[in-house]
């Protein structure tokens, strides 16, 4: 597999703020890679540098094997979808979508054909003669998508393209973007701060925090085997239990917590005797006889397909447990339970 895009050692600072720091990232051909992270973590800055709209202070960016340091945006063979669409208000939908073709000197007839095909692909074949402001937000976003890929760029960049839409429309468009990605086999670099969106759409996710990548991997990897405490907390719901490291060996470790002695996967930097936190997903916590943890159910919440139990452990920390609704109930409010998990399903991180 070849890499469409490669960033190595890329840095960007605005005065005192380091927006992006020592960034290494590569995008495989045909891959859907999402940059996920909290506000201000450097996602947009990264995208702008790839597009050529910002210049990195250090590092190199390679597109299709060639450095783009000297290429202005209009020579980069990149498509970009902006958060607020940026459709040209004085042009009809068709003229908007034809714009990049016109800039590339594509013949009129060929352009017409490609535009119709692109509008078909995003489900707006009959809207070509409208002006952008005569379309709904979701429709405008589809036009922006059509315009950014009608010329089949090597790479499609999307900066929170669904951020301005309501939830239902967002979910619908997520599926559509995914479909278009698969049909066209286009490589996509996608930005969002919505972790569910990232999990739904991506082949791989790069989790950003303060201008750096915390972890990069498939949605399953990030969810099941977070590399840092930040990733464990940012993606999905997690219980954190803190304690002291008793032993580390073979990628496993044992942590002594006030609530009990726990087993978990070990991550980098765990030292025997130092303090650490154990992260475990609510759905990975199971009733267990040889239980490490004991507690009292303080709340039961019925969620339709599942039930959520809030369990107060003996040291007072709360642990959330999620069980399928069709499974036998863990217990009623006030009842005592014993909990545990397979060691591979929990991860321990060094504190601090």
């Amino acid at each position, binding site marked *: 597999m070849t890499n469409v895009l490669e960033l190595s050692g890329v840095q960007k600072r605005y005065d005192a703020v380091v927006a992006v720091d020592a960034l290494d990232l590569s995008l495989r051909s045909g891959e859907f890679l999402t940059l996920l992270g909290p506000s201000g973590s450097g996602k947009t800055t990264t995208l702008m540098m790839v597009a050529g709209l910002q210049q990195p202070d250090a590092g190199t960016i390679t597109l299709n094997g060639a450095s783009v340091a000297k290429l202005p945006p*209009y020579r980069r063979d990149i498509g970009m979808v902006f958060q607020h669409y940026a459709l040209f208000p004085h042009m009809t939908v068709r003229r908007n979508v034809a714009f990049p073709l016109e800039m590339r000197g594509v013949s009129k007839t060929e352009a017409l054909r490609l535009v119709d095909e692109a509008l078909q692909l995003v489900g707006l074949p009959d809207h070509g003669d409208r002006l952008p402001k005569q379309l709904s937000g979701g429709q405008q976003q589809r036009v922006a998508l059509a315009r950014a890929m009608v010329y089949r760029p090597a790479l499609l960049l999307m900066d929170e393209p669904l951020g301005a839409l309501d939830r239902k429309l967002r979910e619908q468009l997520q599926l559509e973007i995914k479909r278009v990605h698969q049909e066209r086999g286009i490589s996509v670099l996608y930005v969002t701060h919505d972790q569910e969106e990232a999990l739904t759409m991506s082949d791989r996710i790069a989790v950003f925090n303060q201008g750096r990548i915390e972890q990069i991997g498939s949605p399953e990897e990030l969810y099941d085997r977070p590399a840092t405490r930040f990733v464990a907390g940012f993606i999905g719901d997690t219980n954190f239990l803190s304690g002291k490291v008793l032993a580390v060996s073979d990628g496993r470790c044992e942590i002594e917590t006030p609530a009990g002695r726990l087993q978990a996967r070990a991550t980098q930097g765990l030292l025997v005797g130092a303090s650490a936190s154990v992260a475990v997903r609510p759905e990975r916590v199971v009733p267990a006889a040889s239980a490490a943890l004991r507690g009292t159910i303080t709340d039961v919440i019925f969620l339709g397909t599942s039930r959520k139990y809030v369990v107060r452990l003996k040291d007072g920390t709360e642990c959330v447990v999620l069980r399928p609704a069709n499974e036998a109930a863990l217990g009623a409010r006030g009842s005592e339970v014993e909990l545990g998990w397979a060691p591979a399903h929990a991860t321990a991180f060094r504190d601090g």
Partner: protein
Amino acid sequence: MTTVDRRLWLLLPAGLTLTVAFLLPVGWLLSRAFTFPQPGFQNFVLLWERPVYLRVMGNTLWISAIVTPITVLLAFPVAHLMAHGSPRLRRWLVFLVLVPFWTSLLVRSFATAILLQRHGVLNSFLIAFGFTEEPLPLLYNMAGLLAGCVQVLLPFVIFPLYSSMARIDPAYMRAASTLGATPVRAFLRVYLPLTLPGLMTGATLVFISTLGYYIIPALLGGARQQMIAQLIQDQIATFGNWGVAGALSLVLLAATAALLALLQFTVGLKEIAR
């Protein structure tokens, strides 16, 4: 309904003043075109038949047609900086563009004359730096007239252009760039069309204002740049020919109305694209 009707009384003082001081005398002057010295269309026939009238009317249109693009071209970069520069720069520019407004037209025109005269500031400068041996004729000709009109009219283009430009989302230009447009093509295809409402408004204001200028051509222009307002003044003050003066005024008014209608039409269409 009744409140609206009652509030209309508030218009009465201004309405009366306008009627007495403006509508009646202007209406009276215009009506002279058809009644002086005797009823009929003879004044308009005269306008058509005497070459001097046609020449001055042609002159006036020609001068307006030159002043307008020059003013727009000079205003464009200023408005652009105002719209997209730092807030600090914007405040300074607004201030600098407004200052001339606080100065009387007469004073400004005389100032321009001092600047442009045979041994004025500009000529001294040009000679001192060896651009020319002899002082250039800059006053009482087309050059003086253009300089005078353009300096007075610049703000009338700068402000409407600025208001159009300030509304252009910078993301449009970024999008154009990622879509393959060179800066020049992005400007021509995206930026410029979006400034058209302001540009058209400003250009029309300039054209119409120039059509009716009296002081500037009288002070800065030469005999060959005589304009329609000067002719009207001559007809009344020198010849007491109210009929021809009325007819000329009517032509000026009609030209202005036609231009405003055109502006309404074009900008009205552009507004749809907003």
